[in-house]
């Protein structure tokens, strides 16, 4: 049985922890709002880009002269997984959920006899994957010093991926990140970047196929110009979604922790009071029985 002093210390330490988790929750809430705004501000660009590309893709579907970024290398032997996670922990299952999805994919690819290469964006993903796939991780990208993700960060990663693709270092590239559904729901997502996939059915439907564009220069050149840009745009969007998801996950994790600490304090306080009372009773009995003995 812990002594009264021990209990007092425990209560004080849990209270201190609760203060920290509470503060972290509030910081996450403030950051979440900013991250959410950034993600929303970036949405029009990505959507337009996708719409135009989907339109162009329809024209090129099944043609032999389609750019390599769209048609692929005709192979799917080497897979590149770009795993985007957070730089920091203490955000519930956020990092491990993304890592889990990527790990399952990597395992099934290896079982099929494919070669897997991994790029980790964010330290936590690397930490989670290095034990099993340490040698497969060809690069880790550290965004620790970056406060708010800018397009240039994503562009750098995009260029790197493109350079690797042009050198024939992989055939298929998949991006792993977490989609921000709501503050309490984030969904680990995988998205195939190369060869690019578009929802061509949708493009035909909402343009009514009526808009016949003039292309300047011709379709092929525009597509060749836009496809590489699209890679960076998609990565940028993923990073922003990730940033918002991370803060959302942290907020709910810290909310849970604060509530948990509260329950713990209540329980400890009850134990403390009970024990104090027991001690007083014992002392009284000792005094009374001492007096009776006289």
């Amino acid at each position: 049985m812990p002594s009264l002093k021990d209990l007092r210390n425990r209560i004080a330490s849990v209270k201190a922890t609760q203060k920290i988790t509470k503060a972290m929750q509030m910081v996450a809430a403030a950051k979440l709002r900013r991250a959410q705004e950034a993600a929303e501000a970036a949405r029009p660009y990505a959507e337009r880009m996708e719409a135009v590309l989907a339109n162009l893709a329809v024209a090129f579907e099944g043609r032999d002269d389609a750019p390599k970024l769209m048609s692929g290398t005709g192979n799917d032997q080497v897979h590149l997984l770009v795993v985007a996670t957070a730089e920091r922990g203490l955000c519930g299952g956020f990092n491990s959920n993304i890592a889990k999805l990527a790990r399952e994919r990597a395992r099934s690819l290896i079982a099929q006899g494919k070669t897997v290469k991994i790029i980790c964006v964010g330290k936590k993903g690397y930490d989670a994957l290095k034990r099993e796939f340490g040698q497969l991780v060809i690069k880790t990208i550290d965004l620790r010093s970056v406060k708010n993700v800018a397009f240039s960060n994503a562009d750098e990663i995009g260029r790197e991926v493109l350079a690797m693709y042009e050198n024939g270092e992989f055939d298929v590239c998949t991006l792993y990140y977490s989609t921000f559904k709501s503050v309490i729901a984030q969904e680990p997502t995988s998205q195939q970047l190369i060869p690019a996939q578009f929802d061509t059915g949708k493009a035909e439907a909402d343009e009514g196929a009526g808009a016949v564009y003039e292309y300047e220069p011709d379709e092929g050149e525009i597509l060749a110009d836009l496809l590489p840009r699209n890679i960076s745009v998609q990565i940028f969007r993923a990073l922003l979604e990730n940033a918002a998801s991370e803060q959302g996950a942290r907020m709910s994790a810290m909310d849970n922790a604060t509530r948990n600490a509260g329950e713990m304090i209540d329980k400890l306080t009850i134990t403390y009071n009970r024990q104090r009372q027991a001690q007083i009773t014992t002392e009284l009995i000792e005094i009374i029985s001492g007096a009776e003995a006289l």
Partner: protein
Amino acid sequence: MAELFQFELVSPEHQLLSAHVAEVIVPGTEGEFGVLKDHAPVVSTINPGILKVRNDDGAWAEYFVRGGFAEVSSGVLSVLAEQAVPVSEISRDQLDLAIRNAEEDAADAKDDLARQKAEMTLSQLRDVVDALKTA
């Protein structure tokens, strides 16, 4: 009074402008082109350069844009640029950085086509710098 149409200037980070304007001059890859109301649907890539917007009151606003494309569909012009900054806010340093990057690209280019492309970007950027100096 000129007839107005919807114009949107979007960069990956945010939407810079969404307004009804009278005329926009876009630095397209195959030459500058002006867009007025009821322009035919067109998609064009853009060069690094100055995009000019004439507002309702006839005043011109200028933006530096780099990398991306312009699209006219159902009477709306949207310009998607990787970088878009009002000319008044652009700093020499940013341009210098862009020029340095372009120079590196030109030096690193693996084949003639890539080098040609990089050099073209470089010369366009220099034109922008010249244009800003004289302005």
